[in-house]
């Protein structure tokens, strides 16, 4: 059975983001993926909680597509998490609304993979920086999946960007077909490939 995918997109300056425009265009064409542009939907940045909860209810997988802002997500997405994942609905005693659903990020970063490494330029790996999300998903009893990354966005050539957009579409299609990326559990799998400490990668 096909998964219903809700793509929650957050970029405050979407019109000037080359990368996210290309990715979102690819996503919009995907069958079974519902694109929900937060900044377009809520220009006043006030979120209709009931409406959002109903949306999440109707889907199996929530993809959060956003650029990396200060090692986290843009403000409106944080606002969304703060208000939509409310007590008694997303978490709390005897609450299981979100159980079994999946939580996954599609993130673009200005820096390359190598700057997001332990003791690298940013001191921490991406997986480490994303741990607040991972734990949030855990608290909501959701599966937290390995993110889709688009990195070094400033130097990405147009051809490479097109390939990346196609890969993104394929990745989303797999989500729909229930071919899910591996689940991330930092506590158990520090050795998961994309967050391998730099020593193992041989970078001094």
């Amino acid at each position, binding site marked *: 059975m096909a998964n219903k995918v809700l793509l929650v997109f957050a970029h405050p300056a979407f019109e000037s983001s080359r990368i996210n425009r290309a990715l979102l265009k690819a996503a919009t064409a995907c069958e079974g993926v519902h694109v929900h542009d937060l900044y377009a939907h809520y220009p*006043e940045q*006030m979120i*209709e909680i009931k409406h959002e909860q109903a949306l999440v209810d109707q889907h199996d997988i929530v993809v959060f597509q956003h650029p990396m802002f200060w090692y986290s997500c843009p403000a409106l997405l944080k606002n969304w998490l*703060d*208000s939509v*994942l*409310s*007590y*008694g609905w997303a*978490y*709390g*005693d*005897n*609450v*299981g609304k979100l*159980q079994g659903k999946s939580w996954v990020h599609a993130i673009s970063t200005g820096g390359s993979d190598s700057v997001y490494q332990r003791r690298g330029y940013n001191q921490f790996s991406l997986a480490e920086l994303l741990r607040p999300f991972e734990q949030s998903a855990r*608290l*909501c*009893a959701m599966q937290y999946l390995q993110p889709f990354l688009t990195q070094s966005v400033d130097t990405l050539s147009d051809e490479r960007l097109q390939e990346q957009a196609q890969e993104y579409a394929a990745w989303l299609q797999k989500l729909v077909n229930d071919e899910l990326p591996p689940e991330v559990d930092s506590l158990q799998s520090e050795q998961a490939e994309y967050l391998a400490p730099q020593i193992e990668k041989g970078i001094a």
Partner: protein
Amino acid sequence: MAELHTPSLLLESAIYLGAAVLAVPIFRRIGLGSVLGYLFAGVIIGPWVLGLVADTETVMHFSEFGVVMMLFLIGLEIEPDKLLELRLPIFGMGGLQVIATGGIVFGLGVAFNLDWRLALVAGMGVAMSSTAIAMQILSEQGALNRPAGRSAFSVLLFQDLAVIPLMVLLLVIAPGAHTSNGVHMDWLAILKAVSLIVLLVLGGKYLLRPVLRYVANTGLREIFIAFALFLIIGVSILMTLVGLSMALGAFIAGVMLADSEYRQELELDIEPFKGLLLGLFFISVGMSVNLDMVMQQPWLILGLAGAFVAFKLLLLFGLAKGFKLQNGDSMMFALTLSQVGEFAFVIFSAAVDAEVISYEHSALLNSVVALSMVTTPLLLLAFNVAYRKRLNSRRKHATHDEFDEERPVIVAGFGRVGQIITRLLTGVGVVPTVIEHDPNQIEFMRSFGYHPYYGDITRPDVLRAAGIARAKLLILAIDDAQEALETARYVRKHYPEVKILARARNRTYAFDYMDLEIDAVRETFLGAVHLGEKALQEMGYSPFQAYRTAWKFRQHDEKMMRDIHPIHADMQKVVSHSVRTRQDLAHTLEQEMNSPVSGHHNTAWEGDTKPS
């Protein structure tokens, strides 16, 4: 006691400024306009009434600089491409105007058995109009970019160009001048003039901006102003050296800077200088009216001034009609250029120097010219009264202003609502076509620099003329709710691809627009919600809490509008629906009060929260 002697410059400045400060506000208050106020002040302090100032000629030469600065400012508003578009009016209208006016006056003079030289000089002088008065009037009327204004400006520009050949002609007809010598000078002068203009254009294009950037980078505002003044004065001096009009040089310098990043700063800096000097110029014109001479031959001078103005009015009106201007625009055009200009003074004094005419004739002509300048503000006054009367009487008739260009956005109505929309759009560079049907409102907004068009938007022909067929967006901001709705229906039917945004008087109209699937905004709704939000703050809500509550209320109300829409014709159902939803609202807002952000009133964060 020589050290106590006040410098005459200071004394005279005080007299000029004082006279202006006394006269101009009064004239404006009683609706006669600032130009007439300055002229009157000049007559009063001039040698023939109070005699406070003796040296009128120096002042006039000095204050002519106001005209130069005005042309510089006008140039700043016109980018080079736009200037090229004006070729036809400049050379066609301007050329015809100068040649026809000069020729007919000359012919009449000869027919009346005047000395042919005197007739020719008079013709040359009369052909000129006053740039200072005309441009001041056009900008006060907000007509610079309207057809009348552009045509008038083109003609004035040609007159500035005509200065060189006319001055050369003076030398040629001077008694005793060697014709061959004159022709020789002619070529040299033209060569010099052309090369200076080319130099100016090139310099303006490649040299000026780096220099301006360098000066601006010093961060010293007064140095920037000093450079701007230096530039204008420098160019003017160069122009006089080759016998061209200073104003023309300043205009070219302005055009070359029209698309530079310093345009606005230059405008702001030069504007006050221009205003003061121009006022001074009008005062000196007032002073140069030789009242003695007028008293001696009142009928001759008044008659000549009246005849020249009437003749110019007729000729200019015919010219404008020939170039297919509308009646109202033609009148405006003729009126602004109907006076004999300041350049006539220059021609006459040069003619006296060259012994082409006698001093007495020149003094007589000068008084006629000054008097003709006084007529313009008076004529304008009469024109405005008549024009407004006609507009008021034809409100319900088929007339409307001519629209200059088709723009993607049309704003209908320029009252409280239309103004705000227009200011916002103009602020981001989207200048809409604004249509208003109240002439008084148009007049009022023009004084703020806006240029709404007169027209009744409910009329299909006005919509068509405003360019509805190619518009992207029509914003209905007119006060009459019923007329707005009917216009919306008409446009929806005949121009379905035009997006309409409407101001809805109340819910009923909002529903009507919803029927048409037109985006409408209830005109008092947001303002009232905002007041409510402020009230909540006064009642102890924090600013964000008040905002959030008001936002919730908006969402609720807008949803209710959508829900009621299908049943809005049935009053009973509407009432019962709103009673029901009022409870929902209370419930929602109460919830809002209690759960700000993901609820901190629970123990989930204490641990042991694994969902079952």
